[in-house]
């Protein structure tokens, strides 16, 4: 029998508020993150992402509200919470004069690791972040940006944290290095909870289980990519490539779905094949019905059919559009 008891969330945030002077950076946000989840924290510049991450990592205090990490209240037991967290700040500041191994040893000791456990953990994180062999002996200042980023992530993972906060972990990295970072997170998925703030939406889309979209200090969207697609995109768009003419195709489609509208009509090749794009208000199921219907109509000779799902960028733009417009109007 499946148990209904939910495990304790790793992060619990309730009505968190923060002001910088007269500017409200956070206007009472609430969310929770479960064990082993990889959550993407998205939002335009100044949305309050870094402020939230800095509060969760114990660097700054919230003005009001509650933030708990591993069940421990940040306001009461900040020191204890820091034992559970690994944090990679934005821009990943590192001491350039130190060697990788010297830096990691220093950080391990600060995080309370001793003796054989220190050696063991250092070895493990070097292996996870692919920093073994010669790289660990090199000076941080002489490393490429990708390697520096891996050093930062290795540091965040050192003390076996239950929550790892990564602020812009793949910024400035080439696709190969980004893939390595992604692979590393996939490897640790389930054991460690990741909270990732990023502007690179394709990265978040590729590696996060869930997204939280912030805009002007408020959460404007939250959920899996599928949830967000359902919430923010009311129309399903599909494309067909056929030899049939426009009127014929439209008539056949409307036999199934009256809400379908033609949005694109384009010639594909000299044989008279055309590409049509339609939108429907009745979702993907209706689009699937239409495809079956069109394939059965032999006279149309449908050769391609494609349902285009909105990407995270579309969702992001729609989710943050309202707040963005409001702010622009005020300014």
């Amino acid at each position, binding site marked *: 029998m499946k148990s209904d008891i939910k495990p304790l969330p790793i992060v619990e945030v309730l009505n968190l508020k923060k002001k910088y002077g007269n500017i409200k950076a956070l206007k009472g946000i609430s969310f929770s993150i479960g064990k082993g989840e990889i959550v993407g924290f998205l939002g335009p510049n100044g949305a309050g992402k870094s402020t939230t991450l800095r509060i969760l990592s114990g*660097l700054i205090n919230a003005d009001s509200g509650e933030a708990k990490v591993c069940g421990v209240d940040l306001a009461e037991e900040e020191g204890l919470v820091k034992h559970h*967290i690994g*944090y990679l*700040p934005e*821009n990943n*500041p590192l001491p350039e*004069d130190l060697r990788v191994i010297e830096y990691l040893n220093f*950080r391990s*000791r*600060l995080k309370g690791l001793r003796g054989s456990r220190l050696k063991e953990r250092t070895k493990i994180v070097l292996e996870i972040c692919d920093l073994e062999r010669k790289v660990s002996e090199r000076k941080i200042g002489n490393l490429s940006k990708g390697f520096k980023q891996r050093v930062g992530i290795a540091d965040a993972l050192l003390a076996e944290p239950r929550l790892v906060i990564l602020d812009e972990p793949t910024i400035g990295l080439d696709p190969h290095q980004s893939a390595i970072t992604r692979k590393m997170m996939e490897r640790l998925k389930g054991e460690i909870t990741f909270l990732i703030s990023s502007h690179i939406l394709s990265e978040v889309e590729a590696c996060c289980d869930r997204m939280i979209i912030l805009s002007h200090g408020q959460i404007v969207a939250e959920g899996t990519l599928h949830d967000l697609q359902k919430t923010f995109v009311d129309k399903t768009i599909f494309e067909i490539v056929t030899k049939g003419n426009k009127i014929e195709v439209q008539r056949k489609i409307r036999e199934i779905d009256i809400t379908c509208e033609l949005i694109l009509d384009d010639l594909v090749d000299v044989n008279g094949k055309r590409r049509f794009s339609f939108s429907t208000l009745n979702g993907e199921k209706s689009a699937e019905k239409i495809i079956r219907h069109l394939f059965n109509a032999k006279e149309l000779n449908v050769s391609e059919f494609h349902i285009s799902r909105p990407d995270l960028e579309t969702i992001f733009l729609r989710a943050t559009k309202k707040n963005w417009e409001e702010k622009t109007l005020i300014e």
Partner: protein
Amino acid sequence: MHPFIVIFKHEIFSLFISSSTYIASFYFLTLIGVGFHFFLESFAYTDWILPPLSSLVIGLFFGAPALVPFLTMRSFAEERKLGTLETLLTTPIDYGVLVLGKWSACFFFFTKICALAFIYPLILLYLYPDQGFNLGFSSVHYWFGCSLYLLLYGASFTAIGVFASVMTKNQMVAGMLSFTLITLYISLMALSSSAKHSIAINTKPIYQFLEQSLAPFTNGFDKLEQFSVGFIDLSTIFHQIIFTMFVLILSSIQLNRLNK
């Protein structure tokens, strides 16, 4: 290992690999050495009443505004500029421990430079034992008093330097602020000493109150006379420890304020 020791060892290591530490130490020790040489050459013709070892202490004392900024300016200012302070503060470390660890490393280096400067009279004593003996270089109580005096004021000067470093992100500004504050502190001591020896005594109650309250912290010059001949003044030890602690607490409050 306690976080204090981790920070202390790390800072010592950082100072050891920093070129500015070596450049500052070299110039400082050279100047002190040259000054000490000329002092000893002209000693016989002066009316100097204190043991000659005290001249070295005075050199180190007045040289401190130039030396201390080189040791302390990078401690927090550089970390703040690079952003490494933020990563440091995500570890379970207390602000007070962090300030104490960094100050201890700077103070250790200051002590090390003072110890190196004390090699000059030792060399003299080794090469010319008779002259060295006559100049009082073999008297242990002189050595003890002078060293203790330097340690006490070195502690407060380095604490001021660390405080200046917490105040800004710019190393140069931290250095200049540190130089200004230490010079101001020494000037206060000089003013206090000259006011004490002047005939005109201000009778206004407010001046008398200020003089009485600040005297323990500003009578450094007068205390040198006692320490250099081996008389240990316990109140000076006590006041300097309080002053150092006060400045370090101010530094950790400022650090806390910056991040909250």
